[in-house]
């Protein structure tokens, strides 16, 4: 069931679930398959030495991981139909280190009546435990006419 309705107001803010980016979750996301020899694979996400050899100050969790958090929030807001036409435009602004905790957030920037229904433009971001935004951007979703949100 979608949370956004035709009565949702511009400026209304929504938060998703708190996500804790543990080392184990980073390994599961970016380290390959646990049954493979050498798991987790060494890369900038999983291995401090590897990350520092590439001039990063620390390991950096994959942006795809928290892009997934924002997609989850959009699906919660618009329903599963968001996976058929939803869009996001994002800029990654800070490193997420294993151990950080993130919350995906969204605020209704505008809503427009279109022939097919109501189109919402959302400002979206994830912020860490220090209140720093690690990814920022916009997302688009819509409520179609004559259909119940799924």
């Amino acid at each position, binding site marked *: 069931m979608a949370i956004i309705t035709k009565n949702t107001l511009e400026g209304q803010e929504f938060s998703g679930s708190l*996500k804790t980016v543990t080392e184990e979750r980073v390994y599961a996301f970016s380290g390959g398959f646990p049954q493979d020899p050498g798991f987790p694979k060494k890369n900038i996400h999983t291995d401090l030495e590897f990350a520092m050899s590439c001039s990063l100050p620390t390991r950096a969790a994959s942006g795809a991981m928290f892009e997934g958090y924002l997609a989850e929030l959009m699906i919660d807001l618009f329903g599963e139909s*968001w996976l058929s036409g939803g869009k996001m435009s994002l800029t990654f602004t800070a490193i997420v280190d294993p151990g950080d905790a993130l919350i995906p957030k969204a605020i209704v920037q505008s809503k427009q009546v279109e022939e097919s229904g109501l189109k919402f433009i959302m400002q979206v971001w994830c912020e860490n435990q220090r209140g720093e935004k690690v990814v920022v951007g916009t997302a688009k979703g819509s409520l179609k006419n004559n259909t119940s949100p799924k």
Partner: protein
Amino acid sequence: MTERKRADKVGVGEEFEPYEYRVTPEFHQQYLGAEEDHHPRYLSESNLGWPIVHPGLLINHSNVTRSPSFYLPIGMAAVHAKEEVEFLSPGRVGKTFRVSWKVIDVYEKRGRSYQVKEALISDEDGVEILRRRITDTYISGGK
């Protein structure tokens, strides 16, 4: 398999070798754990009547580092800078997905080089699942 070219040297109009993978329930479960998202839509039945693939998995497995032709020397890495993503259809757990990438722009900004790629993810039935415009920068121990 095509000859591997250093990823940051792949230029406008060139493509990375496509990548195919199957989302088994076990593989999917690994990603649901990583994303801390165990919504029933991913596990049993969505409104479509089947479990859908978590978008985080689809995004991660369409990063260009998944391409069999992706190559960087030790001490270099691709870092995700920007992203435009369009969700076209839900992916179905159990299906095989194919990802293709084409470089559409390269530019420099503040002394750092950027590469923009268009990625398209389709399933084994030819259904288009996801379209991405990915901007990566390349970093190395030298800078």
